[in-house]
């Protein structure tokens, strides 16, 4: 609706808008619309839409970024689906998510519940937990790589004090992924906590009070009131964490570079290596579309499935 037509004393145009409600504006504002839209539309076309099309086009070719592109049709996709390295990359990504998500959610939930009560310096404490969220991934990964240094790291030294011989962490194929998961959960704990805190504060006090009058135990109040009413926030955390989890890269690149022995090679590391190490831009593009398809599928399934467990209001 245009501003002018919204005015109460603009009767001459009224009949026209009634007859063709959808074309009310027409191109009357074309100049203004262009002025307002082009600053974002031009870069969006240049740096998002064209690369999107380019990526799909590249995925249908074999290309080393230097010599001529060679058409292979769906060859890259077929090859990737049967490729053990691709499968390993997806499995490592799932391993990361399977470790990271429960850790960060349960930790964040515990903190949110604790910090939802009145206590001294509560604001300061929340701020401290949020600190790693604003720190860049590269810094977090470096700090943890140093903390978890197998020979001179302070974590293994502390474990030694209580008689535990610490593992090789990021240098050990079995411990490399847990190291990355630990650092990632540490970084995102505050984010999850803040989202869930906001969710907790949106729950009306009366519900808890009513249940207390009925003699419900703390656990039952949590299980049957807090958790269901917190489900929209939980849903948000899970959706965002999965989208980000499938694209995990920065911390892996810094902490292990996909190693040792490929034990932490995740999908985005694989895309990066295919392009810049193996000169296979076509296969890399195909893999990025497979990743996108998977993320999209998982997100749609969650949105469809939310009816079953997400309670609004």
């Amino acid at each position, binding site marked *: *609706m245009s*501003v002018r037509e919204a*005015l109460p004393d603009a009767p001459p145009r009224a009949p026209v808008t009634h007859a063709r409600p959808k074309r*009310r504006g*027409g*191109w009357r*504002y074309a100049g*203004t*619309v262009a*002025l*307002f*839209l082009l*600053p*974002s*539309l031009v870069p*969006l076309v*240049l*740096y*998002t839409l064209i690369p*999107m099309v380019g*990526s799909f086009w590249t995925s249908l070719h074999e290309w080393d970024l230097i010599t001529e592109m060679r058409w292979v049709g769906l060859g890259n996709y077929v090859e990737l689906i049967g490729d053990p390295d691709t499968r390993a990359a997806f499995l490592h990504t799932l391993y990361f998510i399977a470790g990271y998500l429960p850790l960060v959610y349960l930790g964040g939930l515990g903190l949110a519940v604790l910090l939802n009560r009145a*206590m001294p310096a509560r604001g300061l*404490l929340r*701020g*401290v*937990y*949020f*600190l790693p969220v*604003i720190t*860049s*991934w*590269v*810094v*977090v990964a*470096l*700090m*943890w790589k*140093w903390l978890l240094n197998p020979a*001179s790291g302070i974590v293994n*030294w502390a474990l030694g004090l209580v008689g535990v011989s610490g593992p090789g962490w990021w240098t050990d194929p079995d411990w490399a992924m847990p190291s990355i998961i630990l650092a990632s959960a*540490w970084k995102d704990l505050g984010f999850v906590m*803040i*989202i869930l805190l*906001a969710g907790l504060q949106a729950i009306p006090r009366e519900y808890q009070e009513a249940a207390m*009058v*009925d*003699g419900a135990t703390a656990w039952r109040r949590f299980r049957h009131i807090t958790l269901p009413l917190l489900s929209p*926030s939980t849903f*948000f955390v899970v959706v965002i964490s999965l989208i980000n989890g499938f*694209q995990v*890269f920065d911390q892996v690149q*810094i902490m292990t570079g996909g190693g040792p022995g490929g034990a932490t090679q995740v*999908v985005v590391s694989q*895309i990066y290596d295919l*392009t*810049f190490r193996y000169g296979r*831009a076509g296969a*890399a593009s195909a893999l990025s579309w497979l*990743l*996108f398809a998977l993320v999209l599928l998982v997100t749609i399934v969650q949105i469809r499935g939310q009816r079953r467990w997400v309670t609004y209001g």
Partner: protein
Amino acid sequence: MGEPRGRIRSEARTSTRALWAKPRRMARYAVVGLGALAMLFPFAWAVITSITPSDAVLSVPPDFTPEGASLDAYGRLLETLPFWRIVLNSAWIGAASTTLQLVTSAMAAYAFARLPFPGRGALFAVYLATLMMPLPVLVVPLFIEMRAFNLVDTYFALLAPTIASAFGVFLLRQAINQVPREFDEAAVLDGAGHFRIFLYVVLPLIRPALATFAIFGFMASWNSYLWPLIIIKSPEFMTLPLGLATLHGQFTTQWDVVMAGSVVSVVPILILYVFAQKHVIASVAQSGLK
């Protein structure tokens, strides 16, 4: 459920609860406090490591109050990489990218919220679709595109993908939709055109949304690693995450230098955070409630 029974149970519970209230509260506080220490310790340890003399860095047991503490590591940091320039790069790229996104997104959001034109809904859907594109899908063709225009290893290439933000358009359109149209109309009566309504009526009223978006935009730019890693080769165009990663690649075992770099890159954002903490946290909390 019987009304009296409930009351009796809750009274009994209250007395035991009162008895245990204090120890419980202290236990809760201990858990939260220890957790907070676990959050702070890695930062503190980075600072301590950065001032430990090089030959003592790898020694076990670690030294919490290093003897002969020095700023040598910071000196070596500046010898290896043009670190001040890298810090400045991150700062101005972050500011520029945030400003550009604010301007382009707010204008597009105004068009989508207030200007009627054919195909508006379809175009908005296109904007939303780009929102779902993960960065990994875009980086390879973006690199090729930049190379075709000879833009590899330039400031422009760093900024280009962040000029427009579909997320910003979406967020700000929501905010503009909540501004009552009566305000626009009053301005029209005063003879204002769309540009003046946008500048003097709508923008001041969506200031909280603009601030939220600015925080997200700056954080994303400041922390971005994958795109700079692909497009930047020379140290003088690097931003902090890439500079740090490069430093780490060169000094794999010199943790004092690597931690010095980490400290330098955390401090500016930490200062900003101290001032904007309430707003940052409120913004993130808001994003989860929608």
